[in-house]
């Protein structure tokens, strides 16, 4: 379970995330939506331990991400929007490292690896250096690394960017299966059709504030538009000037590039 309690994050005079409180329960797929610079990436960075909240608490599986960060991270799998892999390791060596970090036994690793190799069709390139991978291959390997240790919580940032239609299908099915098996999925995305298709609940953040939290039908009711698509509802809800990007978030909604 993911629990956020009055979480705020301040960048100088800019409030990137303001009093964010939400709870994502076990087995739920939660889609986190918002325009560029809304605070999505900042929220995710706080959840995975890359940023500390200025105030408030975030708990993953009952563990505080600041005070009990290792325990929280051991229960979490994170798929970033731009996967950063070790160029000079092969896919298999990278997965082995991640498995070792999580303390997987050789038996568990073999079992997980076999399963994920089948799901993500990794076999063809698993023994090549990751520097030779395309974006799609890197993304699939990042998924495999995030789910290798069977996390109870998965945090996925823009999972469909750069993937071909077959891989998109594959990822959607995989996430559904994981949720059905009890994994909590927190997914940030700009692909509204994916959110519409997959999410049990939706959260819409804009200029650091959570504007809406609920199901798609609840959103339709709130906007009094029963036949509207999520895209129409989202645009209406977030109508107005786009927020300026916060330091942790580039205008494209990606994490800041390092020189």
């Amino acid at each position, binding site marked *: 379970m993911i629990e956020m309690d009055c979480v705020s994050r301040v960048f*100088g005079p800019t409030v990137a995330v303001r009093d964010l409180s939400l709870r994502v329960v076990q087995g739920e797929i939660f889609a986190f939506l918002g325009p560029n610079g809304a605070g999505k990436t900042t929220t995710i960075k706080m959840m995975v331990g890359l940023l500390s909240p200025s105030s408030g608490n975030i708990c993953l*599986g009952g563990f505080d991400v600041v005070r009990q*960060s290792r325990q929280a991270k051991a229960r979490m799998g994170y798929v970033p929007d731009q996967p*950063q*892999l070790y160029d000079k*390791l092969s896919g298999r060596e990278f997965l082995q*490292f991640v498995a070792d970090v999580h303390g997987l036994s050789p038996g568990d690793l073999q079992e997980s690896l076999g399963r994920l190799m089948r799901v993500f069709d990794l076999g063809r390139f698993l023994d090549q250096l990751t520097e030779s991978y395309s974006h799609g291959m890197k993304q699939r390997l990042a998924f495999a690394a995030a789910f290798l240790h069977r996390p109870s919580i998965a945090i996925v940032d823009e999972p469909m960017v750069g993937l071909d239609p077959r891989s998109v299908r594959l990822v959607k099915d995989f996430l559904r299966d994981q949720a059905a098996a009890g994994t909590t999925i927190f997914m940030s995305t700009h692909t509204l059709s994916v959110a519409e298709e997959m999410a049990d609940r939706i959260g819409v953040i804009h200029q650091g504030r959570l504007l809406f939290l609920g199901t798609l039908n609840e959103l339709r009711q709130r906007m009094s538009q029963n036949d509207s698509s999520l895209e129409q509802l989202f645009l209406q809800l977030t109508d107005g000037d786009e927020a300026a990007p916060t*330091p942790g978030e580039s205008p494209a909604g990606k994490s800041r590039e390092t020189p």
Partner: protein
Amino acid sequence: MIAAASNERPLLTHSQESRLFWGLRRRILHRLVAQALATARFRLLVVICLTVLFWGSMFLIFLSGFQEMVAAISHATMRFQIVQTINNIFFLSMLVMLAVSSAIILYSNLYRNDEVTFLLTQPVRPQRIVVYKFEEAVLFSGWGFLLLGSPMLIAYGLVAESPWYYYVLLLPFMMAFVAIPAACGAVVCMLVVRFLPAVRVQTFVVVAGLAVLLGLLLVRALCGETSYELMTPQWIQEILQRLRFGEQRLLPSWWLATGLLEAAHPHSPGSTPSGVPAWHESIGFLSVLTSNALLSYLAVSWVGRWVFVPGYSRLSQLEVPQRRGGSSWLDAGLRGLTRWLPHPMPLLLAKDMRLFRRDPVQWLQFLIFFGLLGFCFLNLRRFHYGDGMTQWMTMIGFLHLAMVGLILSTFTTRFIFPMISLEGRRFWILGTLPVSRRDILWSKFLFACMVSLVPCSVLILLGDLAWQIAQRTPLLAVVHQVSCLVLCIGLCAIAVGLGALLPNLRETSPSKIAAGFGGTLNLVLSAMYILATVGLVAVPCYAGFDRAWEDMSRQWPIADAQSLRLMSGLLASLILGATVTYLSLRMGFRAFEKLEV
């Protein structure tokens, strides 16, 4: 359906984590070596040969220097004092440089690194990440120290006929020493990022300023006006007295210098109490160094545990500074300067200049280098030299030229050479605009010339004024300026040409591009070019001038024969410069036209 399991595995212990990260490093190193052996044998061979060549040259220089010293100074105690002072100063300088370089490397490794971003999302201890990256910084900093220090120390051991254990102790001494300043730099870096993130650049400037101040103190101590004739025993004593500030007994540099001298001279004057073997003293100093190194290592881990993650987080919360292109006086000045150039050259130059000045790493260290060199030139005139020394004047003028050229060659290798590779990575921007590739490369060349020519020229003039070359023989000063022009244009052409010929489009870091084969080749070719250019003018000039300095100072214009010799040398260097520039740019243009990204 796939069953998700609740994660109740025990977290890794310290030793498990340590083994895991060493294993990771071993695997990456193994892959790197295997890849280099499989795909880049020639590059590897060149790098190894150049390293051996560099080491060998340094060793021979030090060996002949120490032999010269033994021959010139018969008094054993004075020799010992000189070496002691040299070692103290050398290791003190290294102490400061290692601390600064480790801080910079760790900052980039820890706070601007994608690997750390990944590791922070994994259940590993923050201090493990810090230690892992600190060890990398120590390795990078220590490598340079080893390469520079070991030829000097081995050469001294041979001249001093040191016992076998001196050579055995060298490596442990140096390794233990490196860890201490590196740890100090690392701790300061983490504390600055944690508590002063908004002024971290300013803090770095202050620290670098202090390092420069130390350098200036050193130069002043060495070059300040002396009361005695150069190279006399009294002069040596005075200089040794001035350099005493390096002998601080609480500093690791003193422990290292003294420990090594104890090992090198089992019977050094008055060092070891009677009855105690000399190596006992040396081992004692090694123990002090090692225990302090281990303590420093622990300090890095401890500080990392508490401040790394909050610092990383605070660094991310800084406001993004606003930049308004065109508003600065530098932009306005550049626009005025480049107005005569055809479109789109001024635009490309303005872009490169903005990128250059917004990255302080690009210019700060060269500002320091050039500043120190300028200070050194200005202070050299304080030497009290007699008539016998005037024959050195011409030689020293050309040595200035070569020195400035060598610093410039490191600049062109580190910053100009990678520019083409970096532009190649962004080729979707310029490549899709109506700008010819020729123009892009010309703009790089012009930019490099503009940035390098003025400081080099000023520095040479400064040296000539300080040594009274410009006042006594203006022709020589003009020759120096022309040679400087030839050097700058040639070095920039080599860097731009080779950059286009051997681009590295996979790498995003300019330092890594410069450290590759292309960068190494650029450095070697640049060094050869500098030697040839300066040699062509200096040899005939020196041959003529050393005998007739006094005549020359009275006679202007100088005698025809000398003038002819000088002009022929200058002409030869001009022809060499033009040929190298033409060939480098021609090869570069051809390669850049065909470049596929």
